[in-house]
């Protein structure tokens, strides 16, 4: 997995590429998310359009980040969820936990005008 990130309207957009299956790749995403939290960047979108698939390790990282961000009055939103990941979110019922949007722009906009620093 490769990971890049950018900021848009005060929201951090993380862009993982490849597969999230555990091991060092998963550590990279986990550490990046928790670094953002430490820097008080608490509005985060993960663009999943370039993620081939993830297993429960990836789902665990998303949950960890979601709960940590929400406990810090921030939030994590998903964008461009692929069919494969949508299916996983559905069978695990995590679709009821995450806010997911069709595009990054919609996910960023969902944070509202208050996100403009």
């Amino acid at each position, binding site marked *: 997995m490769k990971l890049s990130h950018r900021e848009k309207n005060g929201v951090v957009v993380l862009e993982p590429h490849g*597969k999230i*299956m555990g091991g060092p790749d998963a550590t990279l995403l986990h550490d990046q998310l928790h670094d953002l939290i430490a820097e008080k960047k608490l509005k985060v979108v993960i663009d999943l359009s370039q993620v081939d698939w993830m297993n*429960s390790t990836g789902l665990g990282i998303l949950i960890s980040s979601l709960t940590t961000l929400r406990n810090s009055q921030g939030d994590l939103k998903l964008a461009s969820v692929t069919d494969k990941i949508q299916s996983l979110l559905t069978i695990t019922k995590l679709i009821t936990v995450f806010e997911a949007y069709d595009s990054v722009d919609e996910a960023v906009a969902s944070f509202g005008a208050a996100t403009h620093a």
Partner: protein
Amino acid sequence: MNRASPDVIHLVIPSEPGRVAEADEFLESALRSRGVPEAIVSDMAIAVTELVNNAIVHGNKSDPQKSVSLTLSFTAREVVIRVVDQGSGFDPSQVPDPLANENLLREVGRGIFIARSLMDHVTYERDPGGGMAVVLRRDISPT
């Protein structure tokens, strides 16, 4: 990789978390070279990486002196995958229900559930070598 026969292939990796990708590459390459549809390849990759992760972390306690073996047996219609660790085993019925409301936000505990959801059959048994074996079956015949 040792090729035991044209239809059975085998990989052994040490119990290091970074080796999960090696198991995935081995699996996906074997499936694609046999013409298995991409949707099934990714389902199997998710299920197998779940179980290899479990074997490394929970079965072998990430002890690099212990290994995880992965055996793929192909027929025209089905692939059978056997993941074996060198641990003391566990009772899969004792894993908490990941769909229960109180468990929904747990970061771990979904691997077996996901593997069962994506495969046709998942069974557990003691391996003759002493470790725990998980056997996955999936129909790969053309639809």
